[in-house]
């Protein structure tokens, strides 16, 4: 699903965010990327989403090499991904259901299926009763769950979650991780999760990659 060979990311100001990353992620695999702030976790996710591009090495996602001058390909790849953003990126003034449906609008789905998938995803995250609530009226944790519902409703090939357990208590954090793991099982998705919460990782089955100053420090199989 994902193949990174000697991937380096250096920003125009000279900062090296990632150096010589080698990574292979298979179908239905769950990978946790850990490391302190500034270690390159979010930069790696940005690379996988085509928000940034390697300045060295090669990166293949779903068999396609990512180049910044091939935006149509990147756009297509993004439709196969379920991103969970650290700041959720929910659209204000719209309901939870509308936000989840937003991720499905331009996929090749009939309207009825869009609605049923969105409702099902909200049910999975336990927010079916908040489907018609504007997202600005939701709590921080509820907003995060809507964001996850938006990602899993797409039945993506890859789920990319940036700190989905941040600011959650242990029980809710475990629920979120279990939810993402269930999505992986349901839709054969690979899941890549960046997290600080290393104490939660042992309780789920997944590979841990530790980043330190942009380089891979440890990759557990």
């Amino acid at each position, binding site marked *: 699903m994902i193949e990174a060979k000697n991937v380096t990311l250096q920003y125009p100001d000279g900062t090296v965010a990632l150096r010589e990353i080698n990574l292979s992620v298979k179908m239905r695999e769950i990978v946790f990327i850990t490391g302190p702030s500034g270690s390159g976790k979010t930069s790696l996710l940005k690379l996988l*989403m085509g*928000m940034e591009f390697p300045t060295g090495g090669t990166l293949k996602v779903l068999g396609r090499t990512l180049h910044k001058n091939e*935006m149509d390909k990147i*756009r*297509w*790849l*993004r*439709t*196969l*991904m379920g*991103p969970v*953003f650290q700041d959720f*990126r929910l*659209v204000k*003034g719209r309901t939870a259901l*509308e936000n989840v*449906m*937003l*991720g499905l*609008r*331009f996929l*090749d789905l*009939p*309207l009825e299926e*869009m609605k049923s998938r969105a409702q099902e995803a909200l049910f999975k995250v336990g927010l079916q009763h908040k489907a018609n609530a504007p997202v600005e009226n939701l709590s921080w944790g509820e907003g995060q769950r809507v964001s996850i519902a938006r990602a899993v409703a797409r039945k993506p090939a890859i789920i990319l979650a940036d700190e989905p357990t941040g600011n959650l208590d242990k029980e809710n954090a475990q629920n979120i991780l279990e939810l993402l793991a269930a999505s992986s099982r349901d839709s054969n998705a690979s899941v890549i999760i960046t997290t600080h919460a290393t104490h939660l990782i042992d309780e789920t089955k997944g590979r841990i990659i530790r980043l330190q100053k942009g380089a891979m420090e440890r990759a557990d199989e």
Partner: protein
Amino acid sequence: MMKYLFKNTDYFMKEAKIILSTNLLSNLTSLFSMTLIFLFLAMVVAGWWVSSHIIEAIQDEAEINVFYPETLTATEISALLEEIEVIDGVREARLIHAEEAYERMEEVLGKEAQVLTYFTENPFSPFIEVNIQLEDLDGVLADLAQLDKINYVRDNREVLEDLRHLAGIMQFLGYLVVVAVGIATLIIIAHLIKLGIDHNREHIKTLILLGAPDSFIAVPYLLVGLLLSAGGGVLAAILSIFALKYIYALTAGPLPFIPLPPLGNITVNLFLFVIILSALLGLGGSIFGFSTAKVK
């Protein structure tokens, strides 16, 4: 593309509504400006169409008057009429007796016709009224000059030339205003669309990250541009119809001889013209605004 356009109609309409209500005051001001611009356009175009119609009507009835010596006998006048009728470009030649010329002047003068009573004798001479094709005017005049028994020929060349010149000015003004309105509308709509995009930058970025195609992201903004411009067009078209009715009412009384085109035709054509043009300009402005906004 068409498939997701139709199935997402509810989404696009709601997004357009939100974009419009977000900058409501600014959008209302723009709608008002657009209405005034299109009203100005409608009035100039109406002036252009009416003047062209008048010119055409006058050209269709282009006439020259041929005066002959009053000493000619009836046989000689008939012979002269026959000679004139066969000239290329002449549609019809008709003898107007002095009495008919007097009656015509009475009709033209209306209430002022009493001045004619001061004449003890009919001051008008008989003449031959020659209906011609205007484009053949020069040829007809040349052929008439070859004929004997003609005192002089009165043509309305100067009047016709003035009218033609006026119609040319109206036409030029019409084109100029269409271009100016087009540019102004494109700029206003493009600016509004850019404002809307700026306001929704985060929303757009989210859509991009989710893989939304540009066309999907653009539709609500195109709708907003279309609604504002066509809305201004509709209002302007309605106002212009009222204005035209008023102008017609003003003109019909004191200037009944002006061959104005039927009001119904001109209002329908003007209504369709302004609405279609405003819709096209709205779409064009939106596309221009969206394509030049930095949304990537």
